[in-house]
């Protein structure tokens, strides 16, 4: 590599393009000219560049295939079409938030379920109260399992084992009484839960899940509306683009 006045050979080559167009500063143009007089490599590079430029300048201007004049004034773009990009970003942000909230809810739910199986029942939960009422309503009713089955939250709290216990209560008044006073009922392990002893979710996850569901629902509605608006805009934009 040949150096001239501290300028690297690579730097000279960067200047060759501007040198072809005579667009280097005068001092630099002269310095590069002096370098070129003694550097065969740069001479070849320069010749190659000149040839490229000559080829590109020979590319003909193509005739226009048709006139691009406008037959009428294009309709003004509706203001809301200008909101296309912000709307897309808003939809994406809402969708990401929705996924995050659902994920958080699932995490809390799984944590809460795990805790409920381990946590000792201290007091009856509202769900347990629902379970408590159910046998009364279900007495003498052939559709008792349905009546009980409708108490989803109760089932979620007590789980399948609790549900079996409730069925037992429906079919056996004595057992129901014993359950009511907290006597352990006969049956497989896990079915001997009293209503008072029915496990309830820890307070914190349960308290957090309520608002989370509202947030989830709100975000789901927002995502749906935003996505619908974005789609409507895209369709309107495609249909509304006038041609001259």
């Amino acid at each position: 590599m040949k150096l001239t006045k501290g300028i690297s050979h690579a730097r000279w080559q960067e200047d060759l393009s501007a040198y072809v167009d005579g667009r280097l500063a005068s001092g630099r143009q002269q310095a590069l000219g002096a370098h070129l007089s003694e550097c065969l490599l740069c001479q070849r590079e320069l010749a190659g560049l000149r040839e490229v430029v000559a080829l590109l300048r020979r590319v003909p201007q193509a005739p226009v295939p048709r006139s691009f004049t406008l037959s009428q004034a294009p309709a003004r773009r509706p203001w809301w079409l200008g909101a296309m990009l912000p709307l897309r970003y808003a939809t994406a942000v809402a969708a990401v938030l929705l996924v995050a909230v659902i994920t958080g809810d699932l995490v809390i739910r799984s944590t809460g379920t795990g805790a409920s199986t381990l946590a000792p029942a201290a007091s009856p939960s509202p769900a347990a109260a629902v379970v408590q009422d159910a046998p009364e309503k279900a007495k003498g009713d052939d559709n008792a399992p349905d009546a009980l089955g409708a108490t989803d939250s109760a089932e979620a709290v007590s789980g399948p084992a609790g549900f079996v216990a409730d069925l037992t209560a429906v079919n056996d008044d004595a057992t129901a009484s014993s359950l009511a006073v907290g006597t352990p009922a006969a049956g497989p392990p896990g079915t001997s839960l009293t209503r008072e002893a029915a496990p309830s979710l820890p307070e914190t996850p349960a308290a957090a899940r309520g608002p989370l569901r509202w947030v989830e629902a709100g975000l789901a509605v927002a995502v749906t509306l935003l996505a619908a608006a974005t789609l409507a805009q895209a369709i309107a934009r495609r249909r509304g683009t006038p041609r001259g």
Partner: protein
Amino acid sequence: MDLEVGLVQRSQKGDVDAFNQLVELYQGHVYNLALRMLGSESGAADAAQETFISAFRAIGGFRGGNFRSWLLRIAANACKDMLRAARARPTLSLEALEPDPEATPRSHAESPEEHALRAELIAQIQQGLDALPQDQRLALALVDIQGFSYEDAAGVMGTSVGTVKSRLSRGRARMRDYLRNYPELLPGQLRLDT
């Protein structure tokens, strides 16, 4: 220039006839820039039409200066949008942006063989342009093909003269390397260098 200023002012008041006179003045520049950026006649025609529609809508915001540069900046953006859309929908874009071998106009002075050779050379140049990054392609299309000054090219590209120089330098070097792969089409030094 006075005529152009008058046409722009009338266009800003919504005069389509005045705007159409501007279209006729500049449609060749716009179409050819789009042709070199996109490499296809049909794509270039779509981009040119989109450019003039957008320009009419936006002309109220034109605050003077070089109208041609302003218009070609809109054209360059329209081409970039189309290239972006083509990347997003490759199955549609391949057909729409396919180079047209008949795009090279034939000179009366040249024989059919010469025309075929020149058309092939131009097709190779276009492929070389297509292989460049968009900004370098735009610089070569403006300065080397359309003959813009560095300053005007900088105005179209919305950048500095120094950046134009740099993009030109890199783009030309890449083109030189690309064209060395086709020595049979090239005259002179490029063929000797291979």
